[in-house]
């Protein structure tokens, strides 16, 4: 991922210099709040300073920037209407003095936004260009486009494929850095569209790299052409699995039980940054800590409790690396261990007798201080989360979740859902749990559903009529079919009609073995530890396609159906050494999973001779898992767990954004401004 990081900083610095910012120039960089995290991941503040950026201002504080003749202003923003309008409003006030303002759209320009500038008549004083930063390496094995949750709504509710184009572009860039990914697996209509788009774009890249820029440059010197060397001859990823989020809507709806998952649920992680109470941060902050916070310390002035942004950057924060994938039950123990270790190390000062021993200790001191600060941060966060997990509502939620998932349906569950509405519980929590219930059970009985819906409308407001319809059109809230089981439930997409088993959660529960009863949270043996007994169906599907985890040795080689469909598949290793990434042998499994048809494609490498070489010299193969519409941090943790396990396969996640159930539901909630009576 170093390649990517370097690429980001190069792109940004190049864009700055194009905007006339050079070392020593007094430039102001105005950054869209949603992008500040993204930029700080790629470029260090020091690098910006040496490039000539005097200060960085959040877009929200644009008004404070006084445009003057000598000042160079560079605005970095997303191509959305609202942001563009904010800049235009400022431009109209700030007279067109001096240098034109450079506006960089991330990751690309948009016609609709450019019109905003044109219509306001400020085109003359701005230079619009694109800053193609799209994929952000949140971690070595986690890439995100950080398209916030809007991507989910756009793709599945509004059927607006705009973000597929960005994803395809990002994939092309990734391949330009890491080599062509020859094998493409996917499930879902959007996944299919994306795969085709990506293949098409590759053809286009091949074509444009071989086409003349313009005929006028035909005979004058300096017309360069660099044919066919866009994609390097390497293969860092041998396969990609593209999944529509609708393949598995259950997983995000469930309450995540890993540390990172809970931090995200409780605090909300935004591009590795998290807003916490200021008291969580050790005051004699060490240097690393300062670096982490200094990059973006935008205080929200209205909040009564002083909060601060901290980076949960696994590169700096080693403790976080230890903690994030653990089941929350284990976090206390690990924190304790660390506390003790630090204490022990601090205590070594008493043993330091000789000068050199003392010197040794002093040398370690800085590191210890850092460790201490991180320990304090995570202990405080963990405490805050514990407060939440001890809340009876939370436990009710969990109880219902576990029961529903494992198929224990009892009438009182519906009563509880009703009770939540009656108690005016937070809307998102309520809808999340109701949706979970509906999706897992395949629907709610028509009469009860109507009652529930009426309760929701009466309690949360009439405008949620639309919200409920949105949930319905995503099959998150449906009524149970009243006729026999032969009837196709509403959840079915455009799957094949001859399938004997309909894609539904009930039908995938067993073959995918999503429920695992005995979970060792301390030394997990299965990915189900992330939900204390439920294995994310999405990741199970990846296991099945790649033959790892529960599906070690299953697939590709024709295996008898009995074995194939067995809940706990017997590892028929040795049957075939080389496990290809494929749906072959697990088609039946892929079919019971909802979300559209599964497909498989291949694309040729740039250098055909390369295949033979690479398959020999590389032992550990890497699969890119792409979630269209976001993925949860538990899914990332699960895939990390698989990377460490048997099967010799590494996984890297690429997602449109990090998702939690609440954020997913929130993207579907109808928002009405100035609605009175929000409780």
């Amino acid at each position: 991922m170093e390649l990517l990081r370097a690429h980001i900083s190069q792109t940004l610095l190049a864009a700055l210099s194009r905007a006339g910012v050079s070392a020593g120039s007094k430039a102001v960089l105005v950054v869209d709040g949603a992008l500040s995290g993204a930029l700080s991941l790629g470029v260090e503040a020091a690098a910006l300073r040496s490039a000539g950026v005097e200060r960085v201002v959040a877009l929200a504080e644009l008004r404070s920037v006084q445009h003057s003749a000598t000042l160079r202003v560079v605005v970095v923003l997303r191509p959305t209407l609202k942001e563009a309008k904010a800049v235009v409003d400022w431009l109209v006030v700030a007279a067109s003095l001096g240098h034109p303002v450079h506006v960089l759209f991330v990751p690309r320009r948009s016609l609709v936004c450019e019109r905003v500038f044109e219509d306001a008549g400020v085109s003359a004083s701005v230079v619009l260009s694109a800053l193609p930063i799209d994929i952000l390496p949140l971690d070595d094995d986690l890439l995100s486009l950080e398209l916030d949750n809007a991507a989910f709504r756009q793709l599945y509710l509004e059927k607006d494929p705009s973000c597929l184009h960005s994803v395809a572009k990002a994939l092309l860039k990734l391949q330009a850095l890491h080599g062509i990914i020859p094998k493409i697996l996917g499930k879902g209509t959007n996944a299919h569209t994306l795969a085709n788009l990506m293949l098409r774009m590759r053809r286009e890249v091949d074509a444009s790299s071989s086409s003349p820029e313009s005929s006028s440059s035909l005979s004058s010197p300096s017309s360069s052409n660099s044919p066919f060397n866009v994609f390097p001859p390497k293969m860092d990823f041998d396969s990609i699995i593209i999944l529509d989020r609708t393949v598995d809507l259950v997983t995000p709806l469930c309450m995540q039980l890993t540390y990172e998952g809970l931090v995200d649920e409780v605090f909300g992680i935004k591009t590795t940054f998290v807003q916490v109470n200021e008291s969580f941060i050790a005051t004699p902050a060490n240097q690393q800590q300062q670096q982490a916070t200094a990059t973006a310390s935008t205080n929200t002035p209205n909040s009564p409790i002083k909060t601060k942004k901290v980076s949960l950057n696994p590169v700096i924060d080693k403790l976080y690396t230890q903690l994030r994938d653990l089941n929350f039950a284990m976090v206390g123990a690990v924190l304790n261990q660390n506390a003790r270790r630090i204490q022990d190390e601090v205590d070594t000062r008493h043993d330091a007798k000789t000068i050199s021993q003392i010197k040794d200790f002093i040398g370690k001191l800085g590191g210890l201080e850092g460790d201490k600060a991180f320990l304090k941060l995570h202990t405080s966060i963990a405490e805050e989360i514990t407060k939440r997990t001890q809340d009876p509502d939370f436990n009710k939620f969990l109880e219902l979740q576990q029961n529903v998932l494992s198929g224990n349906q009892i009438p009182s569950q519906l009563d509880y859902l009703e009770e939540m509405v009656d108690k005016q519980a937070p809307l998102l929590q309520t809808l999340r749990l109701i949706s979970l219930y509906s999706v897992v059970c395949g629907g709610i009985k028509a009469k009860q559903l109507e009652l529930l819906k009426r309760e929701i409308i009466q309690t949360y407001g009439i405008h949620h009529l639309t919200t409920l319809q949105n949930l319905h059109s995503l099959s998150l809230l449906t009524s149970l079919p009243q006729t026999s089981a032969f009837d196709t439930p509403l959840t079915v997409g455009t799957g094949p009609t001859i399938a004997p088993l309909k894609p539904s959660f009930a039908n995938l529960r067993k073959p995918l073995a999503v429920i695992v009863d005995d979970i060792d949270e301390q030394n997990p043996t299965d990915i189900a530890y992330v939900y204390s007994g439920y294995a994310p169906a999405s990741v199970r599907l990846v296991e099945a396609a790649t033959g790892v985890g529960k599906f070690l040795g299953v697939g590709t080689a024709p295996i008898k159906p009995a074995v194939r469909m067995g809940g706990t598949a017997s590892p028929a290793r040795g049957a075939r050494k080389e496990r290809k990434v494929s749906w072959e042998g697990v088609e039946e499994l892929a079919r019971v999973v909802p979300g559209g048809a599964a497909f498989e494609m291949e694309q040729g490498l740039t250098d055909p001779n390369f295949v033979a070489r690479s398959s020999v010299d590389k032992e550990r193969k890497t699969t890119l898992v792409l979630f269209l519409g976001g993925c949860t941090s538990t899914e990332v943790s699960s895939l990390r767990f698989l990377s460490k396990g048997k099967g010799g396969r590494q996984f890297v996640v690429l997602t449109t954004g990090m998702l939690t159930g609440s954020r997913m539901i929130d993207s579907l909630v109808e928002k009405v401004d100035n609605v009175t009576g929000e409780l």
Partner: protein
Amino acid sequence: MATSDWTLLHNRFYRKVEVYSLLWRDIELSKHLVAAAPLGGPVALVRADPRALSVQAAVAAKPILRVFSAAGKLVSESQCEKGNIVAMAWNSCEQLVCVLETGSVRVVDLWGQLVSHLLLGQDAKDFGVLECRFFGSGLVALTGNLKLILIENYSNSRPVLLADAGISSKPTSWIVVPPQFSSSNQPEVLLAVKSTLLVINAQTVIDQRLQTGPHISIALSPNGRFISLVNTAGKVSVISSDFSKQLAEFNTGTSQPPLQMTWCGSDAVTLHWEDSVVVVGPFGDCIRYAFEGVVHLVSEVDGVRIITNDKCLFLQKVPNSTDEVFKIGSTHPGAILYDAHEHFVRKSPRADENIRSIKADLTLAVDTCLEAAANEFNTTRQKALLKAASFGKCFVNDYDAAKFTNMCETVRILNAVRRFEVGIPLSFAQYCYMTPEVLIGRLAQRHHHSLALNISTFLKLNPSRILVHWACTKIKNAGPGSDTTQLLESIVAQCTTHNPNISFTQIAKTAYQHGNTPLAAKLLDHEPIAANQVPLLMSMDQDDRALTKAIESGDTDLAYAVILHIKRKHNMAEFFRLLKGKPVAMALVETYAKNHHDLQLLKDFYYQDDRKIDMARVFLAESFELKAAGQQVNQQIHKWKESQRLFAESKDCGFEVKALEDHMKLVALQGTLEREIGEMFVGMTVTETVYKLLVLGHANRAAKVKTDLKVPEKRFAWLKVKALVEQRNWDALDKVLSRQIRR
């Protein structure tokens, strides 16, 4: 003998090679305005009407412009615009620039087709253009009122007036220094005024305070480092271009101004008087060549091309490698190797002896022979040199064979373009300077597409540019009556066999510009990049296909561009008709309308698509906006009713109808409550209303709301408890709870 045409100038040999015997007949250069492009470029001729002739005659006749290849083969003949051509020259793209006295500048291609047309501005128009000087991409004109006008780039610049030199009479001579050679990085003019030189750019005039003038001729060397000057006394002097050093001096012995002065490479200055060409070396010596009549000199990077009435010659300093091999008495390893090979052919044992004597320097010897081969115009000698190199190569253990094969390739390419049918007399140095890509481009421009393609395949370069150019040319020349299908087939077949990924946009654009829209449309179908198809399709009024292609490209921004274009262009009905059957486009219109808050568009859109539920939702959304805008409830109710009606007309919307019904009931109730109690209720949900009533102690009214809107008992109980807590009415709370428990 290789050295028979060599002449010594101080310590270096110069050679004059006859390249072509010209194909043209009966041309007298002295009666023509001549422009010849460097790097083996074409020669343009316009019959110069002697100025003395009657003005009417000059104005009446449109001059004929003829373009010849360097071998004298007629390329094109065309009529110029009416008017007196002051000067013409080729620009760096091998396009001919003609400047008329009236200040009109016409840029035409090899075939006489107008590429662009510029005007030099008012000064030129009013006072006329006296003289012009050109550089690679632009020109400077001297007008009748002694102003200097600069055009920096023919394609995209307006004329700029240079700083006023403040002169009262025409300068005795002047030149332009191209931007790449000037100290200010912009074009500069050197003006010989009185005894000195003025350096002028757009802002400043600097007097160099020379004493050697008045100068009647100035020339800048091809590498831009030296300037040669001739003064009225007939003295030639060479100075460095920053005016810091005087480098050479030579007395021509005549005060007659030379007809032409150019540089021969950057080593010597060539002067031309009628019947003679004199080469002046850096040490004040000279060679005098006799010519009959007037010739034309073209300065090249490594020499000077001399065009006479019947010949094309190339005069250059003998290249080092050639010098080393062929110089009489040379003991250079290269010469010895060449000698050895000659002995080897004659089966003489001296061959072995020779090889032994240069054993240590064999690599150098082979390299020298190879380079000499490339520098040679004579094919027999090329062969002999290559054979010698090949021979010598055998004695070197690990000689890099690629060097040898590359040089053979180069020699073949040079020979191919030098053939008189093609007529590009390139020397090896010129070929290296211009690069093969540019050569290929120029070949394509001269319609030698097949040769260009062969060379490009030979060098493993991308053939796309040539193919596109070829196809465009084919379309341009096809004429109106030609068979479209045949044209299409031949173009597609040719292009795709050579490059399956070739972009057809440019070709299609050409077809469209030449009025062949059906062909353009068909060509576009073969375009691999969807995004490239769209703009052209839009300009061809093929909106439907443009939209389809834009969607295909996956680039929604492009799709938006088409959608907005269509929306602006057509009426609503047509707009929606075009959207039909394109779910992505429809989704985009929906998103656009929502983002831009164009509710009317949204409603029209849903209406024509009969999407009642969505329409109902728009009305719903509108009602909330009314509330946000502080509008009266009545208007909201209107919207709700509309919404309800639409829900009622759709399937499976019983719940929505009921919910709206209830809601309107609620609002009515709230209105009554507000009047009765004097508290705000409108805008609250049912639950909130009940709760507020309970908190305010209106238990009966709360119960009424409960029954009217069928609030379940359970929720009512919750609200009651909550309200009691809010009221801190612990006694009542205790009662309620104990009753609950008892139950």
